[in-house]
């Protein structure tokens, strides 16, 4: 049984999705989906344990051995990402759906769960597979269900947001497909490990350069890396908060994983950073993303859009870590993948809690909620501190590594910018906090907090941002191992 865990990791949610449609009863489906997702988490955790204890796992799907068959390959990097995705999914799926945020009536909630499980299957599939074409297929599974999930938002603008996400996402996906085709043309293989051995002799060819360009741009669209981020703000703003929570914490993170995998495993450090010199492009773009994303967040009037722009800035941190291309920097990027997932997932759940009591996600409508919903708003404050990077929160751990990585390279300006942009985070976080806690009303409003069933998942994520800010064994420890493993060939 245990040797089939890698296959079960994706097969379970994939098969469970149609079952949801068959079950139909909202309460029943919810319990079922929760159980499935939690099993996924259990599988992911045992895979991570296995990898940490016994090294890489290679699983030949259907018994066809790589490179002919599709190989599922779990190493420390994707085991780590699997745990993140499964954790966030487990928390978000337990969050009760609010009818007022969804366009479908209660008796059709099973569709939401079916889509959610499909998306989860796709994300886990991308992460676990060791085959480039398989990555494309799972990427499309997750993206297609994500477009639909965004389109479920109550606001009619969710539909147009979902549609433009679909257009952008499909362009990105198709670019990836072209890239895969070009690579296949040169090497005749799709297996990632196999590719890493067959590519080096042909790295000089123009075809490989083209493949590289298509793959990087395609992945960057899915990642919403600046300046390919335009789909993200609308999607997160008008999609249901629960969906925004899930996608912001997982979809972009998995795309980041794909990028890391492509750059370090498939193409290799020497090609990417010495011949192509990707850093010369990625580093300035990351810095701009950090600053522009944060500045844009400062001027938003809608809290969901504010968080969306903040995501763009935070993605900038992750790509910055990547472009520093040293141990500390890459560790910072990878650890921020996990940390930002927790923070942003938690913050969007806070918004979901707040929207169970107030009508609109405009920041103005949060006025005085600090008294009315103390636990919800306290969660926002803690999550916000994480975004800023106050010591004791996860944000600090990421920033620590990123600054260290920049100093290692002698890039003092970059180190300064990382810190400066976290001050911009102070501004946009505090704007909201001021509105929440300083109300001009004379009488304190009645306490009317979100129900425990909402607060509990929210606080699990928010609490985790503190826990992993202090105990970094699982996050920074594993991320550092993963970074060392990725850079192993380079140094």
């Amino acid at each position, binding site marked *: 049984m245990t040797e089939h865990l890698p296959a079960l990791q994706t097969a379970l949610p994939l098969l469970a999705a149609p079952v949801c449609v068959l079950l139909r009863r909202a309460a029943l489906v919810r319990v079922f989906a929760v159980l499935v997702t939690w099993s996924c988490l259990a599988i992911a955790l045992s895979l991570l344990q296995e990898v940490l204890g016994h090294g890489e796992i290679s699983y030949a799907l259907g018994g066809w051995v790589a490179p002919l068959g599709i190989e599922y390959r779990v190493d420390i990097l994707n085991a780590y990402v699997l745990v993140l995705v499964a954790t966030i999914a487990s928390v978000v799926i337990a969050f009760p759906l609010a009818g007022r945020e969804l366009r479908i009536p209660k008796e059709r909630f099973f569709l939401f769960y079916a889509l959610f499980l499909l998306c989860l299957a796709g994300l886990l599939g991308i992460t676990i597979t060791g085959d480039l*074409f398989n990555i*494309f*297929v799972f990427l*499309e599974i997750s993206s*297609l269900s994500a*477009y*639909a999930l965004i*389109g479920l938002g109550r606001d*009619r*603008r969710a*539909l*147009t947001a*979902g*549609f433009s996400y*679909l*257009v952008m996402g*499909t*362009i990105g*996906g*198709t670019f990836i*497909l*072209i890239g895969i*085709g070009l690579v*296949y*043309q040169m090497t005749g293989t799709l297996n990632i490990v196999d590719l890493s051995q067959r590519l080096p002799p042909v790295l000089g060819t123009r075809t490989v350069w083209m493949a590289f360009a298509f793959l990087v741009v395609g992945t960057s669209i899915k990642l919403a890396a600046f300046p390919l981020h335009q789909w993200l703000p609308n999607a997160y703003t008008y999609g249901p908060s629960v969906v925004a929570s899930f996608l912001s914490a997982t979809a972009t993170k998995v795309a980041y994983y794909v990028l890391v995998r492509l750059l370090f495993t498939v193409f290799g450090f020497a090609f990417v950073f010495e011949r192509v010199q990707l850093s010369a492009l990625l580093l300035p773009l990351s810095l701009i993303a950090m600053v522009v994303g944060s500045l844009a967040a400062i001027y938003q009037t809608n809290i969901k859009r504010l968080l969306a722009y903040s995501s763009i800035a935070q993605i900038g941190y992750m790509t910055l870590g990547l472009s520093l291309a040293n141990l500390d920097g890459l560790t910072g990027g990878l650890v921020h993948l996990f940390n930002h997932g927790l923070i942003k997932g938690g913050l969007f759940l806070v918004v979901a809690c707040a929207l169970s009591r107030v009508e609109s996600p405009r920041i103005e409508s949060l006025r005085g909620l600090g008294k009315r919903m103390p636990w919800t708003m306290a969660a926002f404050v803690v999550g916000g501190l994480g975004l800023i990077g106050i010591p004791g929160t996860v944000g600090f751990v990421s920033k620590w590594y990123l600054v260290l990585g920049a100093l290692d390279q002698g890039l003092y300006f970059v180190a300064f910018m990382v810190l400066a942009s976290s001050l911009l985070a102070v501004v946009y976080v505090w704007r909201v906090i001021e509105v929440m806690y300083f109300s001009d009303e004379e009488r304190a409003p009645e306490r009317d907090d979100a129900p425990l069933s909402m607060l509990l998942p929210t606080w699990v994520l928010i609490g985790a941002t503190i826990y992993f800010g202090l105990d970094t064994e699982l996050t920074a420890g594993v991320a550092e191992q993963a970074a060392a493993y990725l850079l192993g060939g380079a140094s």
Partner: protein
Amino acid sequence: MNILGLWNYWIVIALMMIGLYILIARENLVKKVMGLNIFQVSVIMFWVSIAKVRGGTAPIVPEGGGDVIYSNPLPHVLMLTAIVVGVATTGLGLALIVRIHEAYGSIEEDQVREMDRAEE
């Protein structure tokens, strides 16, 4: 191999650009989906064309075996999946357009955007 010898790539590039142009230039959402389709088809053609081996036949082992050159079957198989993805994308896109039409009464992007702006 001269420029014309790579004619399959020229077709792919032409189709791709037509698709992208429609995506960018047209306001009608259905036309955008069409553009997306053309764009995707161009890539499928690219994959299929690179599978062709000069002088190769269909990849079927002749009776009694023998040394036959045959074209690479794998890209064809992969493209079956890509076509399915394309169909799913088109389906979802059209479904969204139906909903947009219900919500806005229009499927012209500029009009929809105008309505959104008026709402704010």
